[in-house]
């Protein structure tokens, strides 16, 4: 390395006033970007889930207070590694719902229904609903308002 380059490298060490201005601008931009993104995030997370059979509620879970209510006898509840496994028996079959507490998500892990379509569905926001057509079982957000004016589609 030539002496000229060594001098240049030495001069380049440490923070200079211009460097600090550039850093400050970049950090300011990053802060603005994060603030903008967080302010526009979904501020209406899933509060709870209601499971019903033929339109009658049989189980509800409240994510906010970590509480569940069982309103029918044919419901089995197990808690494994922070997840609730709720088995609902109806119309000669069963569906196992998995409620992930920290992720605020609900899915069907097992069912003996015909096409097992319900095992591909999930509730992770206030618009999504799980239906098992064979057993007439539905899992929906506690806040779900089917007649709220909007028709969720897709």
């Amino acid at each position, binding site marked *: 390395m030539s002496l000229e380059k060594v001098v240049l490298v030495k001069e380049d060490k440490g923070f200079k006033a211009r460097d600090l201005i550039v850093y400050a601008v970049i950090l300011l931009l990053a802060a603005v970007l*994060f603030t903008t993104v967080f302010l526009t995030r*979904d501020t209406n997370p899933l509060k709870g889930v209601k499971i019903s059979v033929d339109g009658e509620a049989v189980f509800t879970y409240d994510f906010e207070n970590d509480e569940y209510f069982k309103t029918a006898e044919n419901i089995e509840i197990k808690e494994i590694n922070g997840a609730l496994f709720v088995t609902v028996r109806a119309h000669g079959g069963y569906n196992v719902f998995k409620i992930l507490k920290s992720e605020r998500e609900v899915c069907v892990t097992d069912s003996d229904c015909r096409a097992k379509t319900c095992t591909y569905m999930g509730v992770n926001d206030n618009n999504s609903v799980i*239906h098992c*057509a064979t057993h007439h079982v539905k899992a929906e957000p506690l806040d779900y308002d089917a007649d709220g004016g909007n028709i969720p*589609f897709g």
Partner: protein
Amino acid sequence: MEKIYNIIMNKHSAFLVCALSAAFIFSGCGSAEKYGIYTNIPQNVITLTAGNFGFENKLETTSFIMQNSTPAPEKFTVKTEEFYAMNAHSVLVVAADFGNSETAERFDLLKSAVGELLLSLDLSLSATQTGSCVYNFNSAPAGSKVVVDANFYNALTAAKYMHSFTEAAYNPAVYDCVQAFGFLGADRPASVSELPSEEKCSALARVASHFSETELIAENGEYYAVKPLYTEFVEGKEYNLKLDLGGIGKGYAVDLIDGLLDEYGFEYGYFNFASSSMVCKSSAGNGNYTVTLRNPRGSGNYLKLLVNNAKISTSGDYFLSYILDGKRYSSVISPKTGKPIETGVITATVIGGSAAENDALTTALMVMGREKASVFVSEKLLDRQVVFVCEKV
């Protein structure tokens, strides 16, 4: 200049630039480059941003109003009835003057008619219902003449037309492919090693390519379907043509239920079949229903539509899908490869015309891919409103 160059090239600056880029990507702003929404209304291409892709407070709103309607009288109330048939949930919503006993009785008759129709369609079009026409057709040997019913005959006639209209992008003869990838009641593969082999997919795709040879016969009030003779022998098993009418059946049902709403004299309401196909009559509020299309890659919605007196269908690779080693496998199958689509079109929605056709079209657009689909829409779907979302590759 040299000073500025040194500042820019300084390793600390480079680190912060990297940090800023990472923040940009992780914050989701990079998704503006990841997805594109294509529609023939109001313009050809709108590039999505993080703002309107996934955050409900920034939805694009587009009106798809097929004909003007007048708001219902104030005394109208809403009644809702849910149905379970064809492996799916559906909901009938009707607004009318239910204080009038004749109207209430008429609604009861409509509910019964819809229930009976869905039951009969299950026994006709469901691939998983033992003894249904599709089940019997699929169970029969190649070349068999199978007794079917009028609904099977009509739905398959529509399917054959859509197969030809979409230049085989829509092909309902992919039942074995769909099953091979773990759908329609089959066991879902737990790992990539459990996925069907390339040889099997190709063989099943060749079987499906003979769909147009399926014959339909109507004679003396009886209906028959004749299976193609073509078979493939792969991995120790013989395969002949089998149908999955899931890509047209819900739309076909919606068309018939639209007719029932007319027949029973209800002009305010909607019938939503599994959030996949729907008929919207007029809303009792301001005439329009607000339909929100689900974000295919997250929570919330990506588009809001104001709709009245129109039929809508939508398909998405997120409906029935699973992810193995970071790759999504959906039940939407490419008839050419026999494997889940990898075209980049992740959801498609078609509005206007018949729901059966729309149902098949949404699948076809996803199979076609972005470029072919946009040409197809501009040349052949001039009477429909189409929206589809692509992953940019």
